[in-house]
């Protein structure tokens, strides 16, 4: 879902508990260039909002980076 919202991004998602609902996403995307950390996180969270809304994701840890940093 993150890759669809941020084409070209490098996305790595780790299931922290094995239950599929506590995830850690590490996202590197050129689209983050120039954005504050919080705006970068907003983009990632907006991409997976549907899974938050339907309860599939309970907690999401986000780490963002710009390519080359």
């Amino acid at each position, binding site marked *: 879902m993150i890759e669809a919202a941020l084409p070209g991004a490098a996305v790595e998602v780790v299931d922290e508990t094995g239950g599929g609902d506590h995830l850690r996403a590490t996202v590197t995307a050129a689209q983050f260039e120039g954005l504050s*950390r*919080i705006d970068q*996180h*907003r983009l990632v*969270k907006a991409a997976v909002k549907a899974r*938050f809304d339907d309860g599939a994701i309970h*907690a*999401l*840890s*986000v*780490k963002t980076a710009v390519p080359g940093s």
Partner: protein
Amino acid sequence: MADAELKQKVEELIAANPVLLFMKGTPEMPRCGFSMRVVQALDAMDVEYGAIDVLPALQPLREVTAEISDWQTFPQLYVNGELLGGADIVEEMFDSGELAEALGVEQPEAAPPPAAAAGPAQAPPLQIE
């Protein structure tokens, strides 16, 4: 549409507290790992902060903060009226020194202690109808 009265109350709290944390549970008893991490970072900074337990009104508060800050998950740390972010961002800022800068304090030398240090100023509980 977020509850207008609740939204106004939240805006007043944000304006009244230089450092305000919306969290699950209380600083003495956080009810979520992310909230606990922010409390630890703030305690390491040794600043006074207001803390609001969102659990009694979780969904209404999500709607309010979605409208105010385009952010619906908790914890949320507001400094001087601005949302800094949740646990991940606060921790990154703690490590980089940006949090100390935002709070106007010195960067602590050690990592956050496991137990709460100085007690934070507890904001009055939100009256939810």
